[in-house]
């Protein structure tokens, strides 16, 4: 028995040492999360336009085109509650903040009404698990009560890629937080990828999830309001196949939520670019995301129709 226990303990220690070693080694590797966090923390007083949200903004808006002191703090697969926590943490400290651009995603309005099983898609699972642990580890976001998610245990095979990751790799962002997506990673089935589930508006939505979402949006709006900044909700352009899955009712709900926020706080604007014209097949990497060329076109349109209009001015 003693021999058995000794061997079991020694073997377990070996496994634990290996896992801890991998975790520590990964801490030294650069990544988008730690870069963006560090940038924001070092430039709190320099940023006048802060872009928040997920990949729909991260790949779509180029700060260089938008103007000076713009930073893209959007990160792929970032959930809205992470943005709330980041907003709580940084917006009150940003003295020169004029505008917060927040990704206003169509699929966020699902609230349990579509039959899309996201857990059945391995790629999506990997992305979500990875982002969950990266957000915890490098953005300091507490997830489901946990303060730490092991990259080895939670980030799928992606942590292996991170060993050869550097600031020069394709996946890394530019100095202002924009991640370039080129056509080389486009698959044959790109038109079907990232198409949202059909939202059945007759079904009752999950009111608790909706209330949580509203609470989060209100909180970000309040924080912006307190800083005298405008909150711009943006639905980035999507491809035809995505557009076909969009429900008019859901769009009305999205508009309704934005209007109600604006009525109450007066600093909210909603811009719907879901059906933006002038984009071609090569401007999309999949049905829901833009490539670098698409981002160039969209950034110009966004600058001219939003930033120029509001002149990056605060509302007070």
């Amino acid at each position, binding site marked *: 028995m003693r021999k058995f226990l000794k061997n079991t303990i020694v073997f377990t220690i070996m496994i634990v040492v*290996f896992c801890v070693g991998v975790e520590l080694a990964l801490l030294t590797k650069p990544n988008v999360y730690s870069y963006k966090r560090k940038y924001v923390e070092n430039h709190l007083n320099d940023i006048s336009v802060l872009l928040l949200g997920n990949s729909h903004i991260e790949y779509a808006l180029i700060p260089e085109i938008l103007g000076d002191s713009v930073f893209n703090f959007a990160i792929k697969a970032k959930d809205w509650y992470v943005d709330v926590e980041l907003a709580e943490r940084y917006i009150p400290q940003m003295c020169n903040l004029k505008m917060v651009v927040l990704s206003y995603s169509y699929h966020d309005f699902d609230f349990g009404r579509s039959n899309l099983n996201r857990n*059945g898609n*391995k*790629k999506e*699972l990997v992305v979500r698990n990875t982002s969950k642990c990266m957000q915890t580890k490098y953005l300091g976001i507490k997830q489901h009560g946990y303060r730490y998610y092991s990259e080895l245990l939670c980030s799928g095979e992606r942590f292996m890629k991170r060993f050869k990751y550097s600031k020069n790799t394709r996946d890394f962002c530019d100095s202002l937080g924009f991640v370039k997506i080129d056509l080389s990673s486009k698959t044959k089935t790109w038109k079907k990828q990232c198409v949202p589930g059909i939202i059945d508006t007759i079904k009752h939505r999950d009111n608790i999830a909706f209330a949580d979402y509203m609470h989060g949006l209100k909180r970000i709006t309040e924080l912006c309001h307190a800083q005298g900044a405008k909150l711009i909700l943006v639905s980035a352009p999507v491809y035809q196949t995505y557009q076909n899955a969009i429900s008019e009712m859901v769009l009305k709900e999205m508009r309704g939520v934005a209007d109600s926020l604006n009525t109450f706080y007066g600093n909210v604007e909603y811009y719907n670019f879901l059906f933006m014209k002038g984009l071609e097949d090569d401007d999309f990497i999949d049905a829901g995301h833009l490539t670098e060329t698409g981002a160039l076109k969209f950034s110009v349109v966004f600058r001219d129709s939003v930033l120029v209009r509001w002149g990056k001015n605060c509302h007070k």
Partner: protein
Amino acid sequence: MLFNSFEFAIFLPIVFLLYWFVLNRNLRLQNAFVIVASYVFYGWWNWRLLILIAFTSLCSWTSGLLIQKFRSEHWKAKFVSITNIVVNLLILGVFKYYNFFVQSFADVFLDGNADGLLLDLILPVGISFYTFQALSYSIDVYKHKIEATRDIIAFFAFISFFPQLVAGPIERATNLLPQFLNKRNFDYDIAVNGCRQMLWGFFKKVVVADNCAIVVNQIFDNYQEQTGSVLLVGAIFFAFQIYGDFSGYSDIAIGTAKLFGIKLMQNFKTPYFSRDIAEFWRRWHISLTTWFRDYVYIPLGGSRCSKWKIVRNTFIIFLLSGFWHGANWTFIAWGGYHAFLFLPLILMGKNRKYTNTVAEGRLLPTMKEIIQMSLTFLLVVIGWVIFRSENIGQAWEYICSLCDTDIWKVSYRFFLFPQHYESIFIIVMLVVEWLQRGREYGLEMSGIKVFRLKAVRWIVYFIIVITYILVVSTIGKSDFIYFQF
């Protein structure tokens, strides 16, 4: 509680240490602890369902004593035995099959409208497994194969022993009960053997089956949009998924039992290396097939009767076996399909042609054996399509689409695309199991020269554990398929 869960990783060492260090001096106390641990393990899903296990155990224990008591009055013993069987099957029938029968009745006579007749029942995890185990005890007592036990604690431990409680192997009282009646001693070699078997089970379940499941679900959920070659990949992957899932569970269960000094029966013997369907059924889910053989097939006359009775008996056990898996026509059709495949062999007296291990004493099989194994595997795969489908219509459409001319356009992308490294794991599993085909499980190392070196053994363990961690981190944990049965 799932074997592949964090809870189990905490539960097992605690139970192991208490079992051997605190309670090893008193057999009854040790058995009582097995019951408590098993009920915690099972109650983790739904503690209310523990009442069912306790009731089933109590019924069978009492009936065993009564049968023993009425040995001289045969009709009374028979009455008790039949009553116990009826009660157990009634519980199983209500929880597992009531809604199926009502819905089928409504489909035929009430235009499918079964409103108000269906019951909102939960299917208790593993109910078919422990019910069959309990039944075998009372039947064995009735048939004088075993003495009824007065030790209620040992009996309850026998029914509820947690490693095999929810998905087998379905143990016989003749094998398992005496082990609870006698003192167990810790044996280092057996415990290490158990750990290895668990490790191999985890590899098959998590690395092979769970990975295959993702591809299989994608293909079966959208089968109408897929080409023949992709559908074939889906069916083959499902064959490995269900094998990895179920045999993996059995290996974990048997390995865990070994840690507690209990030897469970072997449930799988590399079934995909079978040369005909009869051999496949001697190697697949052995505890269930032998159960049906001993308690249904042989009492009906087996193969020592007229030809039409052989046909009848064969169909009965295969259809029952299919129905045992679940309340769906697909399972019954799957049983019927296998009966059709099995029947020619039994009628020609060739059902026991291959009782040895394939390519025994040789490294590689002959061309004839390769063809035989491939054909058998293909037939089994078609059966799995029926088994996996939601309904008979889907199964039929899937099989028809498989015969599409597109099937010849082999989808290399599916096999070679980096995301689908499942094929690599399948190949690893097949190679290891081929090399170890005469042994109890894939990772059995005794007698192999290279594994005499501790370093080599540990490197193998290490690689498997790390692979396991990486795969779990990618796809998370999932239930075992056979829990639903």
